[in-house]
């Protein structure tokens, strides 16, 4: 009898404790203050990572034999946007990349013109925030080459990538942003080739960004316009990217 009571007591205790902790954690996840506290870790992580890493530290590059048989497609696979679909139907010959914002010489480049610029090819690993990884060969123009041409103004702090794909959860289209630490990194490229073939639509044609030291969502696909800004708060919901606006970290080095 005593044993049964004890067992019942323990089961009740465990149930009560788990109910309290589950609802407690769920309530904390809804509390603005607590989430702000959790978010302080992002800044600590970014500063710590950057403090211990030489700014030219390169993401590992692989051998051809290590390339994934299939590079997964994630997120948008064909932007549901009439302008984009028309450009795609024409093989992107009418597409032009606009580069503007806080720059001395705004530019507008066609795909053919971008292909004329110095190129970099790299075989790198793409780590998705979900947990999967795939290796692929990317060819494109280093973003630093493009930035040299447009000459950023001294007050420019971020490079914002405006994309063609409308997203379900917001009225905004996909966008992303990086700072100059990543923008000037040699492996940060605007890729127009995947595994020696023109970039397929499901992987972000005509060009996509590659930010090799951060998670996949930073490497925006379907880029239409590049803007240099000093402040991210007026764009979208103000957190620097589509997924950032959904609560993901702007610093996606983890």
């Amino acid at each position: 009898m005593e044993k049964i009571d004890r067992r019942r007591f323990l089961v009740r205790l465990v149930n009560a404790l788990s109910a309290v902790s589950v609802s407690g954690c769920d309530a904390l996840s809804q509390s603005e203050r607590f989430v702000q506290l959790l978010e302080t870790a992002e800044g600590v992580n970014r500063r710590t990572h950057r403090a211990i890493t030489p700014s030219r530290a390169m993401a590992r590059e692989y051998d051809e034999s290590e390339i994934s048989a299939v590079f997964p497609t994630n997120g948008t696979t064909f932007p549901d946007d009439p302008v984009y679909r028309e450009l795609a139907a024409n093989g992107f010959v009418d597409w032009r990349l606009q580069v503007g914002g806080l720059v001395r010489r705004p530019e507008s480049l066609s795909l053919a013109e971008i292909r004329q610029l110095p190129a970099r090819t790299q075989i790198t690993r793409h780590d998705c925030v979900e947990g999967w990884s795939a290796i692929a060969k990317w060819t494109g123009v280093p973003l630093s080459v493009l930035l040299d041409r447009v000459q950023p103004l001294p007050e420019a702090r971020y490079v914002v990538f405006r994309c063609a794909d409308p997203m379900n959860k917001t009225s905004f289209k996909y966008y992303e942003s990086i700072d100059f630490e990543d923008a000037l990194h040699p492996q940060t490229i605007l890729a127009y080739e995947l595994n020696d073939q023109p970039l397929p639509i499901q992987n972000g044609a005509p060009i996509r960004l590659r930010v090799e030291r951060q998670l996949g969502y930073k490497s925006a696909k379907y880029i239409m316009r590049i803007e240099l800004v000093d402040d991210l708060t007026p764009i979208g919901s103000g957190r620097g990217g589509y997924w950032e606006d959904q609560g993901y970290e702007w610093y996606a080095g983890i």
Partner: protein
Amino acid sequence: MITNPGPASTASATEVTSPRRPWRTFRHPLPIRIMHWVNAAVILIMLGSGFQIFNAHPALYWGERSDPDRALFEMKAIKTEVGQLRGVTIVLGRAFETTGILGASRNSAGELKARGFPLWVILPSGQWLAMGRRWHFFFAWLFVLNGVVFAVYSVMTKHFSKDLMPRWREFLVSGRALIRRVMGQTLERPTIEKYSPVQKLFYFGVVFVCGPLVVFTGLAMSPWLDAAFPWLPSFFGGHQSARTIHFLTASAMAVFTAIHLFMVVATGFARNLHSMISGWYYVSKVNRYYGKD
């Protein structure tokens, strides 16, 4: 952290010199008690948020890549011919039906949904990867900080060398004691002051092997740190291998926690809980003379 080994465990190496047990004994100094409870909360949060993160891609691989056809472990939901959802867990190519727990489990409305780990172990208790990551990467700092302070403290106070470090001699001694007990030659009793060699092995393993391993495999998954320290993921056999080891180590820590909780309950829940709150372990009348020869 100590639990009474109880009559079932093998005898400790420490010979009982006093014929009579004290009625209470001081077990856990304040810093240890604080670190224990901080760690208890942090581990539960790290496991819950870790399962949440894992649910975004509930499969494990070896090497750098996650080739879909080469998963070592996978949880998924399949639809039967009559349209029912079934949870399936595939371990090294062998499939097990795990409906209700892994692969497919019920939501608060009672409907089966495709989901790796069930809602009642993930934090927060709904599919919310972004929030799981926020919890995980905040409390990871507390986990490391608490662990480092514990390591430094236990080395400085000799808690490590006296109480935690398993020694071969103890296993020999307790092995011999076990044989003697089996042969009926003597009946050696466990002591309440010291950890048994098995306890030492478990505590040492979870704190000084699993702890660093789970931290370094966690760091190895960061693409940024991969660029800074390419040897880190390579040491574990690649990015996805590091993820697999991270998951297995965390699972081992979860199993340890379950065994630990079971032992706490099985060897006198109230006394054990009391000793980790106040520091004092009260010996019952029966146990007080238990060590008497």
